[in-house]
């Protein structure tokens, strides 16, 4: 991975930040959204807030009536609930990838977008976390998956991938949050020191924990931040690997596959970057950040999309090849017959188009820097990655070993409302984030500026 990325560190990094603003000017520009939000913000909040309200109503309905209100059945015991879960958790991966891995391989261009991506991660993982919970037949007993001394002296069954999931996802959520907050502390201090009203100073002062920025604090801080990045990196890989094991450890044809961990990780980063674009492009416009989020950023992200897109495509091919090569009738049926020609063939081909064809436009630099193209492509990839999970999960279950239990799956309105609900909940949280937190790291940008100046002076 790092090889691939450092490959595009070659061009002069000067264009990660356009112009030569003074520290103060740069600071003011970056915290402006927090101090005076742009217009049209309130309606957006209300809209997404409404969607969130709907989400929680549906959740209440499901919890009181039973998950029979979904379209799930036997054999398709897992369906949209898990599809959405994997989709969201996947999206959650680009954030950490950008801020951690790219930090380690010293990709300067990450700086201006890393907190943005981390925020996305955080809120995506929150959405993802909803599903495994709701998906239980008896959600009120979710804590039985956690080891605690119970009166019945019972413990979780650690051979199952689901307890792994619980630990992995919660670790990921916590670590991402800590990473995000630690990075945030100096910038909260900025607002503490810069905000016009006393109230704001007080509030942000509290969250800044009293950060002073002494050289000694900075030295520990730098190391610790680096460490968190270092920790988050294997986490990104491991979490989605473990999520993939929810399927890989089973023996269901179409799930029972060793390629899953890398395949899932690549897919996750793929969808994550797509989502970053989906959010970044409008945000850049709204907040006039053309000078800090530049064509170079888009160029690099587009290249990442191509790389991960190809890995995903490769995985599809390998899956099918292995199915054929194994000679296993069941594998062959799922991979070579049911998916491309079965009742959900249409979805399969949408997936192929979105995930394999779309990124090919990025062979052209003009496309890589054209925000419209990028935005459309990002949306398509988001859709593509959702359909991938659908195909992966549903088509494997609906036609497994005994033909007698083959059965079609149809989602219900509840299924769909739930999904759309999480999308607005996500947007709601993200808008709040944009509104109240400096989403472009102020101190890091100033540090970058310093480095760029040195670079300019040829030091």
């Amino acid at each position, binding site marked *: 991975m790092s090889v691939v990325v450092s490959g595009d560190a070659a061009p002069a990094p000067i264009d990660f930040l356009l112009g030569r603003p003074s520290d103060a000017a740069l600071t003011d520009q970056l915290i402006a959204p927090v101090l005076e939000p742009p217009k049209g913000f309130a309606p957006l909040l209300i809209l997404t807030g409404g969607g969130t309200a709907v989400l929680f109503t549906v959740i209440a309905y499901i919890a009181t009536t039973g998950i029979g209100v979904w379209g799930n059945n036997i054999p398709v015991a897992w369906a949209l609930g898990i599809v959405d879960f994997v989709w969201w958790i996947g999206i959650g991966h680009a954030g950490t990838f950008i801020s951690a891995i790219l930090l380690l391989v010293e990709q300067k261009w990450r700086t201006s977008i890393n907190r943005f991506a981390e925020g996305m991660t955080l809120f995506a993982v929150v959405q993802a976390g909803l599903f495994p919970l709701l998906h239980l037949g008896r959600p009120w007993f979710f804590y039985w998956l956690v080891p605690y001394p119970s009166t019945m002296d019972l413990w979780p069954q650690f051979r199952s991938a689901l307890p792994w999931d619980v630990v992995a996802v919660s670790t990921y959520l916590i670590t991402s949050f800590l990473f995000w907050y630690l990075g945030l502390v100096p910038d909260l201090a900025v607002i503490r020191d810069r905000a016009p009203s006393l109230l704001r100073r007080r509030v942000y002062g509290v969250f800044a924990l009293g950060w002073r920025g002494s050289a*000694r604090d900075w030295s520990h801080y730098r190391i610790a931040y680096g460490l968190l990045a270092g920790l988050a990196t294997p986490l990104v890989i491991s979490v989605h690997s473990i999520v993939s094991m929810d399927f890989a450890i089973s023996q269901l044809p179409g799930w029972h596959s060793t390629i899953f961990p890398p395949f899932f990780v690549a897919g996750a980063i793929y969808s994550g970057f797509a989502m970053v674009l989906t959010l970044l492009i409008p945000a850049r416009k709204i907040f006039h950040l053309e000078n800090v989020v530049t064509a170079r950023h888009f160029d690099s992200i587009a290249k990442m999309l191509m790389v991960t897109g190809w890995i995903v495509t490769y995985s599809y091919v390998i899956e099918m090849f292995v199915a054929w090569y194994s000679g296993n009738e069941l594998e062959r049926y799922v991979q070579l017959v049911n998916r491309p020609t079965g009742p959900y063939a249409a979805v399969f081909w949408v997936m192929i188009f979105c995930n394999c064809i779309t990124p090919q436009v990025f062979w052209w630099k003009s496309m890589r820097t054209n925000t419209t193209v990028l935005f459309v492509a990002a949306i398509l990839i988001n859709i593509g990655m959702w359909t991938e999970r659908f195909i992966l999960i549903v088509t494997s279950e609906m036609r497994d070993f005994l033909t007698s239990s083959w059965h079609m799956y149809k989602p219900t309105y509840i299924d769909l409302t739930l999904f759309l609900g999480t999308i607005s909940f996500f947007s709601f949280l993200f808008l709040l984030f944009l509104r109240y937190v400096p989403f472009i790291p102020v101190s890091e940008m100033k540090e970058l500026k310093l480095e760029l100046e040195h670079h300019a002076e040829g030091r």
Partner: protein
Amino acid sequence: MPDMKLGVMAEFRSAEELLRAVARLRELGLRKLDAYTPYPVRELEPLLEIKRSFIPKVVLAMALFGATSAYILQWWCAVVAYPLNVGGRPYHSGPSFIPITFETGVLFAALTSFVLPLVLAGLPRLHHPVFEIDGFESVSIDGYWIAVASDDPELDRLRTEVELQGLGARRVVQVEGKRK
């Protein structure tokens, strides 16, 4: 020394000026120095004799502790506390215990590397004498501050102030030694 007694403080406009100032004060034999900057300025660390942080060692230890205890917990549950025949799998199914072991290790490490830097910086501490200094709020924006401890044997407040002025300090502040 996060809570050194502040003697003289001065604000500079840029990292370069600050660095020059620190170097100069050291020539004058001042040793109890500290600096406050909007972002980490690595070149300061040798000048201020800041040793490389020990945080990584602690984090590693915590990571190992977390991982070990996670594995032991799983083993204990499956083998000692309530052994059950689960699909004929051995009670001690080592490979299945790895993912949780790893994740828990990471979790412990992450918590440590979040808590330590803050604790070492004496945080959370919402109020600190340094905030009393007029104009210190610039420290997070574009102010590069240098501080001399009031108990530095070599400290000659007047001379130091003059020096700092000479180095182009935007402002120099004499902090009353008796406070704090």
